[in-house]
């Protein structure tokens, strides 16, 4: 087992997280007095003193950074401007909703995209194949907010089938999930198709076919696992894209997640909330990427097995 690979990836994740925190810290300091930036207009002199003490603003920069990180690790992100509530509390209320939406969207993309890709690979150059390949560009270039609005127009306003705002029932989930999922679904289909085609043309598959092997067995037991590597890679790289997209989609569908919270906080300059969400989202991204890297490491035999392994 090439342990070095996993260690390097973990180290990279740490460095990226660290860079993110430094970046946010830097941005905050650059815009002037952090106390002024982070406290609402009607804050009293005492509030300022208390804030300065809490965040160590009178101490040298390095110490400030240390205090900054320490506070974060304790879950202390400050208070929101809007209502004075603890930021961490606000976020933790809304985070599950976003995770739910993102998770379902990714699952949707995979569940629909992969079979489409397999179908396209097995029925190469048919109309279905060409159509599926076309959807990839469609997904890549379609503005997701426009797609969402069109869905609302058709399914909520004209047909009255689905609700257009909120998150109470699973019906509420459908449209936002499909909107986010569709952006990358086409690309998954495309990658699955080319990975499958690649594997299906390998000599050992052709000999198995010649020997009369069951086609299903061939596809699912032999071809698909080998095609898994590029597919996992492309899923990994697209997670970031979908997270970015979810920020906008949560707005379109009034989904009460942290994406929506982020945008509304930016609009009113509720900086404590913005700062916290960015760091948490960033951290989530880094963890997701790390998970993908680990999965890749376990799948790719070149990394999983070294020459000296028994």
């Amino acid at each position: 087992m090439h342990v070095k690979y996993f260690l390097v990836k973990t180290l990279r994740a740490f460095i990226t997280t660290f860079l993110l925190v430094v970046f946010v810290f830097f941005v905050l300091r650059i815009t002037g007095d952090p106390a002024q930036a982070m406290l609402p207009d009607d804050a009293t002199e005492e509030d300022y003193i208390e804030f300065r003490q809490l965040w160590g603003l009178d101490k040298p920069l390095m110490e400030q950074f240390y205090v900054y990180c320490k506070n974060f690790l304790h879950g202390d992100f400050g208070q929101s401007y809007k209502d004075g509530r603890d930021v961490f509390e606000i976020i933790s209320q809304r985070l599950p909703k976003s995770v739910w939406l993102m998770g379902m969207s990714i699952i949707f993309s995979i569940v629909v995209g992969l079979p489409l890709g397999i179908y396209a690979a097995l029925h190469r150059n048919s109309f279905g194949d060409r159509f599926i390949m076309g959807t990839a560009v469609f997904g890549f270039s379609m503005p997701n907010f426009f797609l969402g609005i069109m869905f609302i127009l058709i399914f909520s306003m004209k047909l009255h089938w689905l609700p257009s705002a909120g998150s109470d029932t699973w019906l509420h989930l459908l449209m936002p999930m499909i909107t986010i999922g569709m952006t990358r679904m086409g690309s998954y289909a495309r990658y699955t198709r080319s990975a499958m085609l690649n594997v299906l043309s390998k000599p050992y598959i052709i000999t198995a076919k010649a020997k009369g092997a069951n086609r299903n067995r061939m596809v699912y037991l032999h071809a698909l696992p080998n095609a898994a590597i590029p597919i996992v890679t492309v899923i990994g790289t697209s997670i970031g894209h979908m997270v970015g997209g979810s920020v906008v989609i949560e707005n379109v569908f009034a989904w009460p997640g942290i994406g929506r919270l982020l945008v509304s906080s930016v609009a009113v300059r509720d900086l404590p909330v913005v700062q916290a969400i960015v760091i948490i989202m960033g951290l989530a991204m880094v963890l997701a990427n790390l998970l993908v890297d680990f999965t890749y490491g376990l799948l790719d035999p070149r990394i999983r097995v070294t020459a000296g392994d028994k």
Partner: protein
Amino acid sequence: MMSDNVKNEKVKFEVLSGVVGQETKLQKVFRKVPPMIMLCMAWLLFMFIVAVFWEQFAPFDYEEQDLANRLAVPKIFGGTDTTHFLGTDSLGRDFLSRLIRSIRTSLLVAFCGTIITAILGTALGFVAAHFRGWVDEAIMMMVDFQYSLPFMILALLVIAFFGNNLVFFVFLLGIEGWNKYARMSRGMALSAQNNGYAVAIRQLGASPVRLYTKHILPNVSNILIVELTLNFPAKILAETSLSFLGLGIQPPDTSLGSLLSFGRAYMMTNWWLAVIPGLTIFLTTLSMCLLGDWVRDTIDPTIRK
């Protein structure tokens, strides 16, 4: 020897593709352009003309309000208004003029952003490849950082703290996607170093700047051009998304994203106020993506997707 027409075509392709050594090949290929791609080029040309000559095309002042004539339904959608070809918006402003102005703003911002990103990314990639060592490590760390975080999140953070005046916004867009250029140009520069001609040319006494600008850059131009065609739609999407959220282009100026955002509230009755801007964005980005794919397949089919 060569007729002027052919010569001009040659120059045009040199400019279009930057691929100096393969003019004749490109000429042959251009005759085989599929109709779909022709359509894309036509649409993009149309958008380009509208963007450049927006003042001539707009029938009204895009900011002029006419509160007595709000949300007028134009003839083409079954209404009575004949002065405003696409009707008016919620403040009585001529929708067609606003659309035209939006096209101009969105395309201009996306174009500037694309150029900034290309220059920034390519230069940093070259710097990383040339100096190696800790400079390379530092730059690649920034590239990884950019790859691992969605641009939207970074953009929102920066806008929250710095505000969004126009020039600043364009530079912010310039940060989207620089990592792709950096990785590509670094890769090309490294392979040039290994290939030998970088060594040979340095051996002749050429300065590093000369090596990168006169030799490596033309060799990378293939891939860079393809990346440009893919980056431009990404810029449009980034800008319109942020404007849609109200955080990008600010009033009184207007973008396709903000048009869509305003039009959304009136979708029940005046659906075109939302559909038309959205469709414009989609057709433009789709055309660019299809064109980019075709350009890539033409110039070098061996580039992996």
